[in-house]
């Protein structure tokens, strides 16, 4: 395709923009449809399907959830707890290890590096871990299993190490001359300087814990400590089950009462809503963190 030397290629520009807009629609549209369906009445959904703006706006879906499920409140509490505890503890644990490893004058640098690196390439596998946690540590069916094993994350720690390594040695030297202890240097100088790194890792951690479901699926035998995502999945499975077996007495009653689609969409908003709302505010840090990490290699 020969183009006019000084003119702009309009076809290319148009198709380029079109593609990007379509892609944006593909990423945003599902969410709009879900939000709209969650605020719609069941009859509107049955008659018109998924719409951009609900034909009949109601809070039925949400009301139903609030009334029939204190499971949801519980799941919320649990998920918030493990997210908060997990993020803070993991961040501390990883930062505390990342800092010494970034210091060139750390005596045991090589040994510790090797020690933490090995588990990233060799692992016992899921079976021994499962046995360890259920049989020997008795952590199955407790709330601890949802975040304690996940606290140590070497790749995140290495990312933090990169951030710490950017702190000029002279700064630390100066502090030492002033008589500061290692602890003081860590808390008062190093940590504040890697705020972007901490924020990035924190976002990843929050995401990880908030969306946690696999550990719950694997280790929870009862419904006592279920996370939000797992609850969502179970409810959807039950809805499916009810739908396919309307001849089961109670199911029939429930199925008739329940604004099924509105409820499932509301469930999605309830579980995903917080992350989707919070994320745009942190996008700046997140993007910075990723690009720094990728450029440094």
């Amino acid at each position, binding site marked *: 395709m020969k183009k006019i030397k000084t003119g702009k*290629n309009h076809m290319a520009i148009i198709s380029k923009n079109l593609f990007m807009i379509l*892609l944006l629609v593909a990423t*945003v549209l599902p969410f709009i449809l879900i939000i709209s369906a969650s605020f719609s009445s069941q009859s509107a959904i049955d008659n018109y399907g998924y719409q951009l703006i609900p034909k009949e706006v109601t809070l039925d879906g949400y009301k139903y959830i609030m009334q029939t499920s204190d499971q949801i409140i519980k799941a919320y509490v649990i998920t918030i707890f493990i997210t908060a505890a997990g993020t803070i503890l993991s961040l501390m644990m990883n930062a505390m290890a990342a800092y010494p490893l970034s210091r060139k004058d750390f005596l045991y640098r090589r040994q510790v590096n090797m020690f933490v690196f090995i588990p990233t390439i060799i692992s016992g596998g899921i079976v021994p871990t499962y046995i360890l946690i259920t049989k020997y540590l008795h952590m199955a069916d407790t709330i601890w299993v949802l975040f304690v094993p996940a606290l140590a994350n070497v790749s995140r720690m290495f990312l933090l190490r990169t951030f710490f390594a950017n702190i000029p040695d002279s700064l630390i030297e100066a502090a030492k001359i002033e008589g500061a202890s290692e602890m003081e240097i860590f808390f008062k100088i190093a940590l504040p300087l890697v705020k972007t790194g901490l924020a990035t890792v924190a976002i990843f951690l929050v995401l990880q814990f908030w969306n946690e479901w696999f550990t719950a699926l694997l280790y929870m035998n009862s419904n006592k400590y279920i996370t939000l995502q797992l609850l969502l999945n179970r409810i959807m499975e039950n809805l499916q089950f009810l739908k396919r077996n309307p001849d089961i007495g109670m199911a029939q009653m429930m199925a008739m009462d329940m604004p099924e689609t509105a409820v499932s969409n509301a469930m999605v908003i309830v579980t995903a809503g917080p992350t989707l709302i919070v994320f745009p505010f942190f996008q700046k840090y997140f993007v910075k963190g990723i690009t720094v990490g990728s450029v440094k290699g």
Partner: protein
Amino acid sequence: MLLGLCVPLMVWLVVFNYIPMVGVIIAFKNYNNRLGMFGSPWVGMKNFEYLFKSQDFFRIVRNTIGYNIIFIITGVIFAVFVAILLNSLKRKISVKIFQTGYFLPFFISWVIVAFIVQLLLDVDKGILNSMITTFGGEPVFWYQEKYPWPFIFTIANLWKNFGYSTIMYYGAIMNIDQELYEAAKIDGCTEGQLTRYITIPLLMPMAVMLTILSVSGIMRGDFSLFYYVSNDSGMIYEVTDIIDTYLFRALRKTGDMGTSSAVGLFQSVAGFVLVMISNKIAHKVDENTALI
């Protein structure tokens, strides 16, 4: 003192990573829950024999590796493509808007992606089937047909993850010296030529590096993707079952410790070998890169 700071992490690694390593012996035993790890009888390679002979094994390894390769290739191409497009936007605010939108799917869990997929593929209410019947066709039982799933998984994987990779490549493009572009423009280069001769060659090292490093993870699949999006529909296991989903079912549903631990060990060992190889290759390509 500095060492003290490292202690919590190291203790954790010992408990949750090093100790389970001992458990690899389970793969060589006929595990009995009552007798435990050390009391169960030794059966040597029996578990592995059984595993390698089964059709299942071939299928899950093929699926795991196959999907990973497809995901890596499509992932890189698509992310680079979108990053270049983003770079061509004139206004900063446009970039922000697109970036935010593209990033949205990254923040939801696969459970929700499965929900969205179901909106499309449900037999009665799905959007796809509604469109098909409107045009006079027969509704398709998506969750029971094998052939569309590789495409469904690939698209789902792209949709959810491209935001993240795109940002990485976009960041790399930002780092390219603007003077190169200026000089080329003065010489009369068009946008297309700028992309072909400057942007892409300069992105290649990063793309190649990331690809090589991704290869090291080729034995592992994203469990949630395959388990949830397919609704764990047994009829399509032929194309949806990967090592991780197989392991999960063996562990939770059939309680078959012997086979699952053999599979697990295989996955770890193969994974380890791949990491070593990919690391060597990465090191040869760019000396500054090394995991070690």
